[in-house]
């Protein structure tokens, strides 16, 4: 590593990385500009006792959601990649799919199912259950965010498991270690970067989420930011609170960097990774199936079932669905563009951060996360600010919308790409360079194929988030440009949540194929 740190990155890569990091940091720059003029009132807003209270509550939620997402995702990943779980590929897809459920819809559906007078209550009433414990507040927010974000850990961990060299485990086995011990001492340590990357995304998502916390009536930091914008029209206060989120993000990133540490995760030996054989589950088959089944029922079957039920009701009432296809096309277009642009930008950042660690590359990587830690409304208003001042012709065009969504979700692609890069032995690249290939050529022919699954995971993650993005789309889309998410917003804000069921269902359908592709690609063929 020391030898690498000393090497300077090629200038074009450095420039590209700095450009990407700088652009992704625009929302943070906007906050700084907004605060700069009003430092006193900004400081007042931050150091209010109430703000500290909300911060503590938000920190608790972030910690709880991240921990439970990891606890849920790691066993699911291992079961669906490395064992002889029946219908493994199907479970792989099904357990990834809850990610397509937007948090505001997921939370609403959880309330409909488990809230007072919800579906479950109706079922239990004849059995003498008078009232279920309230789902609102911390518990509801924690449940909703865990259920609909744990795939953010699942996907990279699954990828890492696939790239894992079975030789290590076989060696440990040959030395007499049991399967549990092998998992703890050999497999788990190698999964740390992926768990860290995924956990970081879950933590940052929880920081910035508004949908679930508002429906679950949990007063988080992001909800405070919305209140500042929407009730007191106090942009300084909102910006000050946003700045606190950026600082929290930097702290989380520092934590993650320590986790990732200076370990070596790539193989040192020659040859390619051989697919691992499936580990027989034996008598654990039934509990394993029960776990997968329970997660899929609560996080997927239940929301989809309710949406299907409401959709059929809507169709029965003869609701026109003509615009849904066009809106789906628009959602697809924006999400695909954002995924493509996002992966290219993320590649610059990830290569720089992993291959040329140093102060500049660290800064670039961390700046890149700014957009993700902030609520969508802040990212969007930042681009309103810069768009109307320096890029007026682009303001409220498709290009600017794609740009906004890309910087909002860039870290989703940086994470898995970086984790994949860590598993590529630098020696391979050095060998190729030693044979006289230019750096870009080395990247294209050696690095890229090896990190393809990471890039694919990154693209899919950006796509999935982009396809359900709402605040930036409402603010920055060209006038009249409707997506599935804006359609859902329109329906719910006119008062009938059930009316949003059809676009919501189509949204899930649109988002599912990339996820399916993701869970299929690289599945161990035995």
């Amino acid at each position, binding site marked *: 590593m020391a030898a690498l740190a000393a090497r300077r990155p090629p200038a074009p890569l450095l420039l590209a990385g700095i450009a990407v990091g700088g652009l992704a940091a625009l929302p943070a720059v906007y906050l700084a500009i907004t605060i700069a003029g009003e430092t006193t009132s900004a400081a007042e807003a931050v150091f209010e006792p*109430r703000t500290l209270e909300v911060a503590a509550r938000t920190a608790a939620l972030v910690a709880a959601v991240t921990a439970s997402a990891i606890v849920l995702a790691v066993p699911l990943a291992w079961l669906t990649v490395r064992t002889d779980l029946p219908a493994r590929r199907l479970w792989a897809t099904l357990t990834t799919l809850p990610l397509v459920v937007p948090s505001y819809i997921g939370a609403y559906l959880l309330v409909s199912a488990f*809230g*007072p*007078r919800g579906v479950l209550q109706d079922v239990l009433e004849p059995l003498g259950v008078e009232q279920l414990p309230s789902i609102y507040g911390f518990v509801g927010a924690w449940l909703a965010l865990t259920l609909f974000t744990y795939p953010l850990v699942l996907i990279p961990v699954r990828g890492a498991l696939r790239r894992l060299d079975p030789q290590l485990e076989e060696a440990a086995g040959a030395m007499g270690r049991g399967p549990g011990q092998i998992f703890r001492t050999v497999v788990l340590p190698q999964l740390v970067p992926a768990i860290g990357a995924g956990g970081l995304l879950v933590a940052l998502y929880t920081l910035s989420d508004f949908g679930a916390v*508002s*429906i679950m*009536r949990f007063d988080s930091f992001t*909800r405070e930011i*919305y*209140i500042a*914008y*929407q*009730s*007191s*029209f*106090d*942009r300084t206060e909102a910006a000050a609170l946003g700045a606190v989120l950026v600082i929290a993000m930097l702290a989380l990133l520092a934590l993650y960097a320590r986790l990732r540490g200076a370990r070596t995760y790539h193989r040192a030996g020659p040859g390619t990774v051989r697919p691992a054989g499936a580990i027989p589950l034996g008598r654990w088959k039934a509990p394993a199936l029960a776990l997968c089944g329970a997660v899929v029922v609560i996080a997927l079957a239940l929301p989809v079932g309710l949406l299907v039920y409401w959709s059929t009701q809507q169709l029965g*009432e*003869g*609701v*026109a669905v003509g615009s849904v296809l066009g809106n789906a096309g628009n959602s697809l277009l924006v999400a695909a563009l954002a995924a493509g642009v996002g992966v290219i930008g993320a590649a610059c950042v990830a290569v720089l951060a992993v291959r040329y660690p140093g102060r500049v590359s660290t800064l670039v990587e961390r700046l890149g996360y700014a957009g993700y830690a902030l609520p969508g*409304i802040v990212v969007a*208003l930042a681009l*309103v*600010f810069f768009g*109307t*001042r320096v890029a*007026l012709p682009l*303001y*409220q065009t498709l290009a600017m919308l794609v740009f906004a969504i890309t910087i909002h979700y860039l870290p989703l692609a940086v994470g898995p790409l970086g984790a994949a890069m860590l598993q590529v032995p630098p020696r391979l690249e050095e060998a190729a360079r030693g044979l006289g290939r230019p750096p870009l050529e080395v990247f294209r022919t050696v690095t890229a194929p090896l990190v393809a699954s990471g890039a694919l995971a990154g693209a899919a993650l950006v796509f999935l988030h982009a396809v359900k993005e709402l*605040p930036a789309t*409402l*603010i920055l889309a060209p*006038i*009249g440009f409707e997506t599935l998410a*804006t359609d859902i917003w*329109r329906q*719910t*804000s*006119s*008062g*009938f*949540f059930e*009316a949003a069921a059809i676009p919501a269902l189509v949204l899930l359908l649109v988002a599912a194929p990339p996820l399916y592709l993701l869970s299929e690609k690289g599945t161990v063929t035995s």
Partner: protein
Amino acid sequence: MSTSSKTSLALAVALVALPVGACGNSEEPGSGDDPSTPGITVYSGRIAPLIGPAIDMYEQKVNRDVEVRFGDSATLAAQIAEEGENSPADVFFSQDAGSLGAIDAEGLLEPLPRDILERVPARFRADDGDWVGVSARSRVIAYGPEVDPDGLPDSPLELTDSEWEGRVGWAPTNASLQGYVTALWLLEGEDVAREWLEGMVANDTQAYESNVPVRDAIAAGEIDVGLINHYYVAEAIAENGPDYPVQVHFPPDDLGSLVNTTGVGVLASTDDRADALGFVRFLLGREAQRYFAESSKEYPLIEGVEPDHSLRPLARIPSPPIDLSDLSDVEGTLELMRDTGAL
């Protein structure tokens, strides 16, 4: 919106459009290759189903396109404030006076001419004449089937009584409730407002993120009564029929059934002042006012247009003498609501 009401809307639009088409060379509404000149841009906090047909009527009338960006009123206000001089918007149509007041305070609205202002009663427009009300709504106590209408309180202040413990819903993050608290403060003083908020919180009042969930919670039997705007119930009754389980009570005392307004303002940065003002005039014309009264069950504000027959006449709604412009300043209210744990 159900198909039947959509059809009737389409019919209404067609009927309005017919005479225009008959005496001019006007095209089909909404035809893609409309040769009409590009017109103004409206930022609308009012959702498409509630304003779209009115916009179509205006486009027909002046043979110019109107571009509409939809969003939440307060977010659009924040957007306009960030856009500043370069805002593409010519007109801001807001769901509440507060959002208009906020951008007016930034100096981004242009004074409206007298002929526009004088179409609506003075209490439904800005003191400085920078924005004007379009339609009005009343803050009511909505109640469910389990509640005896005779037992409903005469004043929203009585909702802190122990008999209502855990049975009331409200939406404290919602602009209309904050405006309500501001009005209470202005009318009765800070102490009464504080006491009421404390009482509501102590009485285990259930918080929801907006008005519709409050109404739905009443319909689902989760709570018995809620503080919401009258039209949420009127709409649901129109949609679901008279058997809809939620009804409306207009409390007569104290804050009563505070009447608030949606409103419209013209941006100082507009590059098409005449058309922008023309649009505002249209919104305050008979056609559009009648449309608002019928489609969303709100109160029309110009003379000669009657509200929906199912509604209590505006004049008979007990509403305190409040300057609606004063309701845009919710800073103190928010602090009070936070102090008391209401927010």
